[in-house]
C-alpha cells in the first residue's frame, strides 16, 4: 500500500493530473467589476446558478485568488488598475473575458476611453461572448477553463 502511494507520487503523470485537478476545482475569483456584466456576476454566484458547485467562489482578497473575470468593457483608467490587480495575483492565474466589450470593445469600438479588447492588457484564457452573457454561458466558460487546465503541463505558459 505504502509502496503504491510512493510509486504514485513518483509518477509525474499522475502527480500532474492530481495537481491540475486541484487547480481546476478551486478557482477562486477576484471581485473586480470593470463593466456592466456585473449583475450577471451576482446572479451566477448566488442561489440559482451557484458556480460554487464548480469551485468558483467569489473572494474579496485577491492574494488568494486564481481567477479573474473581466466583466465587460475596460476603460483606459481601469486598464492600469486591472494590470496591477492581475500582477498581484499569485500563480497560477487565469483570466476569463466576459462579454463583447471585453473581447473586442463591442458597442464602444469607437469610444475615446475604452480599451479595444482586454487582451491588449492581460493574457486571456477563455472568451465568453454575449451582452451580457447569461449565467449559463459563464458556467460554460468556467467548465472550458477547467478542461483547459486539465490538459496543462507542469509549468503554466
Amino acid at each position, binding site marked *: 500500500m505504502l509502496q503504491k502511494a510512493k510509486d504514485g507520487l513518483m509518477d509525474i503523470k499522475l502527480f500532474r493530473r492530481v495537481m491540475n485537478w486541484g487547480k481546476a476545482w478551486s478557482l477562486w475569483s477576484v471581485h473586480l467589476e470593470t463593466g456592466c456584466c456585473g*449583475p450577471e456576476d451576482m446572479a451566477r454566484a448566488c442561489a440559482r446558478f451557484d458556480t460554487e458547485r464548480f469551485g468558483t467562489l467569489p473572494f*474579496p482578497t485577491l492574494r488568494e485568488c486564481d481567477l479573474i473575470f473581466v466583466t465587460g468593457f475596460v476603460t483606459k483608467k481601469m486598464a492600469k488598475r486591472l494590470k496591477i490587480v492581475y500582477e498581484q495575483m499569485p500563480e497560477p492565474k487565469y483570466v476569463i473575458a466576459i462579454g463583447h466589450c471585453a473581447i473586442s470593445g463591442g458597442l464602444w469600438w469607437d469610444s475615446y476611453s475604452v480599451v479595444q479588447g482586454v487582451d491588449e492588457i492581460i493574457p486571456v484564457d477563455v472568451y465568453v461572448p454575449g451582452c451580457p452573457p447569461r449565467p449559463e454561458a459563464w458556467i460554460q466558460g468556467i467548465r472550458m477553463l477547467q478542461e483547459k487546465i486539465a490538459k496543462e503541463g507542469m509549468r503554466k505558459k
Partner: protein
Amino acid sequence: MSIMKLSIGPQHPISAHFRFLLDVDGDVVLKLEPDVGYTHRGIEKLAEKRTYLQNLPVIERVNSYCDSAGTMLGYLEVIEELMGLEVPERAKYLRVIAAELNRIASHLYAASLFSVATGLETMLMWPINDRELILDLLERLTGQRITYTYQTIGGVRFDMPDGFKEEALKRLDYLEKRTEDYYKMLLWNHTFHMRTKKVGILRPSDAIKLGVVGPNLRASGVKVDVRKDEPYEVYDRFDFSIPTGKNGDSYDRLEVRFKEVGQSINILRQALKDIPKGPIKKWVPPIVPKGEAYTRVEAARGEFGYHLIGDGSMKPYRLKISPPSFRNLIALPHLCQNIPLADVPIIYISLDLIPMDVDR
C-alpha cells in the same frame, strides 16, 4: 494627531468601480473624495455619431444594472416629444410594465448589496433569487435578462406572450408575501438596526440643496416623484402612493426602496388588468425635427433627465444625459464627514450609486 490619506478601491469588495480617497484621523473619516470615471465610455459623444435607432442599445447601457427599461424610457420620451409622436395605448402599458418590473429587480439588487455590506449573507441570496423570478418574466416579455432594447421609437418591439399575465400576477403575489420575510429577516433585525439607524442622516434641506434625487430624496421626507409631478406614459391612470422616510438615515433609504417595491406591484397589477388591445408599434420616420427638449423620467434610482437638441437629421446634435447616480454622488462626500470608517460602506451602499450611471 496626524492625518492619514487612505485609498479604497477600485478592487475592493464594497467599491465596485469606485475609488474613495479618504482623509482619516485614527478611525474617524474627516473627508471623502470620490474618484469616479472608471467606467466612462463617452456615451454622450458616441450618441452624436450614431443614429437615433442605433443609439437605443447604447443609451440602455447607461444603467444596465437592472434598470435598462427605465433608462430607455426617458430617451424615447425626449425623442417622441420632439417628434410630437403619440404612441399606441397598448405600447404605453407594455413600456410601463417593463419599467416597473425593472424597478422591482433593481431594488431587490440594491437590498442584496446592502445586506452584504452589513454582513447578513442570507439576505444576499434571497433577493437575488427572487430577482431571478422577475428576470424570467422580463425574459418572456423581451427575450433578454438584463439589456432588452424592448422599447423602441414609436412603441415596443414585441407583444405580451400568451400566459404572461397569469404568470406575472402569480409571481407578484408571491413577491408580496415574500416582502414580509424580508422585513423579518432584514428590516426588523436588531443587528441591522445597529448598523444603519442614525448612520448617514441626510436632512431634507441639504438633500434639496445638493440636488439629490429618487429614493434617497424621498427617504429624507421630500415627496418628489416624476411619476406624480409630471406623469409620463400612463402613470396618471394608476392609483399609487409615494413612500417617504422620516429620518433620512441609511435605514430609511432601504425601507423606502422596499415600500416602493410594494407600490410597483400595485401599479403592475393595475396595468396588467387595464391593458387595452390594439397595435403595439407605430411606424415612424427615422428623422427627428429641429428643436430642443428636456424630459424627466423616474427610473429605479431616481430621476433621469434627457436633454436633446435635434438638427433635423438622423443623428442627435447633442444629447445630454443627467443620470440619478451622478446627482446622488454629491451626497457621499457630504455625509462622510466626521464619521467612523466602518460607516463609509454602509453610506455608500445605502445611496445605491451605480458607477456606470455616474460615468456614462
